[in-house]
């Protein structure tokens, strides 16, 4: 009798294991099917927001792009799930994982973290920023690589010298950090100030930039061609916002 019970139990365990295996197999086949379905959906233009998770010195980074460009970049501390829900509510609920569309941005970010890139050429979609915050973010790419600017300077450049605190708010709400370099904006007294990815991330980003800037030869032989030539004129020109102001 004991034998029977034991074999019964073993049989049920085996059945449970089998059903578990079948379930996991089902899930993986669903993933394959979904990726295949996304190919044809992409051809039809049904993917409004594509996202991807890349590795960085600060842990996984979430990048999301619309057809216009990178619309969101989020650190782990911001909660990727929450960020995706925010995108679904504010841009379009058709948010899917489609890494192919973000190959360019992921490659440039990787080069940037290695110190091999000083400016980004991928298009940025600032549709999540509005009003004064947007005008602040539009001025940030003018800050040279490995350089910093004060909140008050940016406020003056954006047309409202008294709005240094609003500039800080705009930077903290930057939907595309790193690509739009809000980490290069620091306090006037030299301290770093806050950052969306945490102050440690801000420090490390500035470290990466200053180290790469020192090791690079003075005459940079390969300036990255792109929409933001202002981002390459690093040490040669002192930082002025006047040429960028309308």
């Amino acid at each position, binding site marked *: 009798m004991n034998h029977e019970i034991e074999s019964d139990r073993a049989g049920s365990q085996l059945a449970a294991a089998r059903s578990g295996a079948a379930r996991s197999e089902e*899930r993986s086949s669903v993933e394959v099917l979904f990726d295949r379905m996304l190919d044809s959906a992409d051809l039809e233009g049904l993917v409004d927001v594509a996202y991807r998770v890349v590795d960085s010195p600060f842990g996984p980074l979430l990048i999301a792009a619309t057809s216009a460009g990178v619309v969101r970049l989020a650190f782990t501390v911001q909660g990727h799930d929450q960020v995706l829900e925010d995108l679904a509510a504010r841009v379009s609920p058709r948010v899917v994982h489609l890494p192919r569309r973000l190959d360019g941005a992921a490659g440039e970010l990787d080069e940037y973290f290695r110190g091999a890139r000083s400016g980004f050429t991928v298009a940025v979609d600032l549709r999540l920023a509005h009003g004064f915050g947007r005008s602040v973010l539009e001025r940030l790419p003018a800050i040279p690589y490995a350089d910093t600017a004060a909140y008050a300077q940016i406020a003056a450049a954006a047309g409202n010298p008294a709005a240094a605190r609003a500039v800080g708010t705009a930077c903290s709400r930057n939907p595309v950090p790193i690509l739009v370099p809000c980490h290069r904006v620091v306090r006037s007294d030299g301290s770093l100030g806050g950052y969306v990815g945490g102050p440690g991330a801000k420090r490390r980003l500035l470290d990466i930039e200053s180290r790469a800037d020192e090791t690079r030869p003075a005459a940079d032989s390969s300036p990255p061609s792109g929409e933001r030539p202002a981002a390459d004129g690093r040490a040669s020109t002192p930082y002025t916002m006047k040429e960028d102001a309308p």
Partner: protein
Amino acid sequence: MTPVGDPETGPGAHAAPGPGGATPFQRIAKAYGPAVLRVCRAMVGPVDADDAWSETFLAALRGYPSLAADADVEAWLVTIAQHKSVDLIRRRVRGPVPIEDLPTRAGDIGVPGRGGPFRPVVACPRPPAARAAPSGGVSLPCGHALCGRRGCHRQFRRCGPARWSGRDRRTAPGPDAPRPAAGPAAPPCRRRHGITRRIAYPLRLRGASR
């Protein structure tokens, strides 16, 4: 797909994703994809289930932004899956069937009037021309004739055309009336013609009018 929003390990492990509008489609697919695949397998079998699943989620992605905020996403997906599966079954029936040996010549199947599924099912027992015969009679496929009176076919079936005129004098054609299609040489027909529907129907009318 990705670790993001994994319903197995994520923080909201057993919380179903909310309705359309606020939930990324990726999470919808992750949560309900297996259930929809089971529906597809039950509907169309394991071979076509993948196609049905893909078409389901393609259609779902297309319509997802316009889904009502309080809609039941799983029921919505299952309904789409059922419709897509029915489409697939219909397509499978209509589609060409692979065979081992090709026929050497074109067949008649599917050509109207040449056999196959388009063969007429029932020959009309009372062609309009026959109804307009001088005596009001009707010619039958066997060559015999019926008078135009309702119900006389019942007599005809019971006794056969040989004794027909003797049994029912009321309905028999008069002696000077030209006989319709049935010539004297026509052999007696004892077959039941199997055309009872159109002619038996007026019998009830006759009974009702009495």
